């Protein structure tokens, strides 16, 4: 058996604290990274990039962001779409106002701007909890979309009301605009995902992560051990929005190229990312990836099986997809609120004793 904890002894606290305490897990992590960086870019084509890899990576960033807020800090948010829109429009305004600055700087700055907006909309969380907070963030969602539609300054007074990404280069290679190659889109998203995931993991395993989880599990007890709830919640909103803003900027600039705010960042987007977090697993960085992969691949797989293989009409398949997602949400909420990540963890626990459970 490769996948065992047995015999894998730790002799220092640093070793005990590592992200992947099992040797096999560590190897697999490096293997996945190696494949992602060294194999996929050379094999990817437009179809794979646009249908699966690029949306998967971008949604993974958004899901990590929402997971920090909802999974770790326990603050339900339905404003994800709105915050992604902030990232997208911030990126657009920066790209058009400072064309000579590198796009990577713009994307990071967009994340920063979204963090500030998110923290502002996080203020009600100090007074209200649970469903009521969800409704307050819903207000953020609708307000932000309305704002970007209404104020022409945000879309540079273009006639269509759309924003479209001008061509920008990183190291001489186009990463936005119509001439972008599949591997370039993929690579820029991959780099951002890797860095975001590592940052998220580092934040959630240390003091800040424990502060958030303390607020999530019992806010009164958190206060009594010295957590300032105002600071902890606003920090969660800010960090979460930072990631979501980056996802929004990439979604607009790299993936879609041109965006109409109501269509790309509507309430459906908020729900989609929330579903990813619920199905993948609340309070787990790995779960964010699992949920994003699942909900990106599911429609593609259904289309392949339903339309191409079985010859069903397209609308039937797309309705079927809604039914499946709805059923899954109910299943996970009732049976396993910690999602795919917890199923994975349980499987590991079972394997620890396998094949002799007693």
């Amino acid at each position, binding site marked *: 058996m490769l996948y065992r904890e047995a015999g894998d002894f730790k002799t220092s*606290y640093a070793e005990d604290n590592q992200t992947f305490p099992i040797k096999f897990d560590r190897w697999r992590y490096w293997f996945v990274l190696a494949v992602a960086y060294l194999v996929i870019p050379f094999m990817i084509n437009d179809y794979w990039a646009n249908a699966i890899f690029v949306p998967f990576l971008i949604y993974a960033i958004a899901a990590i962001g929402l997971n920090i807020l909802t999974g770790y800090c326990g603050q339900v948010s339905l404003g994800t779409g709105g915050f992604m829109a902030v990232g997208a429009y911030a990126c657009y305004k920066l790209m058009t106002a400072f064309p000579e600055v590198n796009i990577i700087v713009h994307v990071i700055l967009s994340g920063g701007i979204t963090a500030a907006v998110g923290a502002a909309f996080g203020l009600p969380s100090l007074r209200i909890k649970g469903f009521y907070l969800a409704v307050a963030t819903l207000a953020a969602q609708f307000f932000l979309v309305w704002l970007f539609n209404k104020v022409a300054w945000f879309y540079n007074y273009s006639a269509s009301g759309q924003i479209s990404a001008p061509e920008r280069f990183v190291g001489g290679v186009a990463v936005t605009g119509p001439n972008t190659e599949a591997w370039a889109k993929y690579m820029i998203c991959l780099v951002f995902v890797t860095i975001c995931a590592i940052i998220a993991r*580092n934040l959630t395993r240390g003091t800040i992560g424990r502060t958030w989880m303390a607020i999530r*599990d019992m806010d009164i007890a958190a206060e009594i051990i010295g957590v300032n709830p105002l600071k902890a919640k606003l920090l969660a909103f800010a960090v979460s929005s930072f990631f979501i803003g980056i996802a929004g900027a990439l979604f607009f600039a790299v993936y879609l190229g041109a965006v109409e705010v109501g269509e790309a960042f509507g309430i459906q987007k908020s729900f989609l990312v929330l579903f990813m977090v619920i199905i993948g697993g609340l309070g787990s960085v790995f779960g964010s990836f699992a949920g994003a992969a699942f909900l990106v691949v599911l429609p593609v797989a259904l289309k392949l099986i339903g339309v191409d293989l079985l010859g069903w009409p397209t609308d039937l398949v797309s309705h079927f997809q809604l039914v499946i997602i709805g059923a899954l949400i109910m299943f996970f909420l009732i049976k396993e609120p910690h999602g795919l990540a917890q199923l994975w963890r349980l499987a590991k626990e079972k394997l620890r004793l396998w094949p002799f459970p007693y």
Partner: protein
Amino acid sequence: MNATADSYVTEDGRTIGGVLMDMRNITLRFGGVEAIKNISFDIREGEIRAIIGPNGAGKSSMLNVISGFYNPQEGEVFFRGERRPQMKPYQVARMGIARTFQNIALFEGMTVLDNIMTGRLNHMKAGLFRQAIWKGAAEREEIENRAHVERVIDFLEIQAIRKTPVGRLPYGLKKRVELARALAADPKLLLLDEPMAGMNVEEKEDMSRFILDVNDQFGTTIALIEHDMGVVMDLSDRVVVMDYGRKIGDGSPDEVRTNQEVIDAYLGVAHD
């Protein structure tokens, strides 16, 4: 008041220092109900101070005043010789006052280790960016504090459940983990709200031993509320007795035991 002048040594050789916390004329009202009526008492450094009284006497309210949950309408709280202004609970925690709750307040979704590590929050200073990078300052700090937490884990004999989610533990162990979390903060003053409620005799003996050991080895000042008279009389150096929000007795366990008003409050008295 001079702290060193009136320190003394107990029969079992512990040194009791000067006044650590002084509650002066505390009155706490909820609407028309006076939960605490003009109570004054002090807690000396290094001692085990018990607050006892029948149900509804205002003991827990008193503890909540000390830990900053309630702000009294009248009266002053002095901590380490300085008047304490109105504070939020997290600010009180940062002054070095840790507490446990009557009905356990642990973070159910986290492991025992993480729960106890939260007790070290106020000792960990690495900011957002250092933690995002992790390697370097944040990791070093985490490991230093982990070592401290491991000492507390050893002390309370909960090594085996380190990585278990708290939600899965039985009641007695949860109480012990909560004590561990409070201890991990290196408190100057430790408040225990009915640390032995709902325990059987053996668990009570274990808990009593831990409380005495904490006081003895770390020199932590402890204020506790307890219903079990035998335990209180054995553990504590001085006892405050409350009844209907008033203080009716204060002194060593023996003095309190023979106080007529205390006996009346506990046994009832004929109204004629």
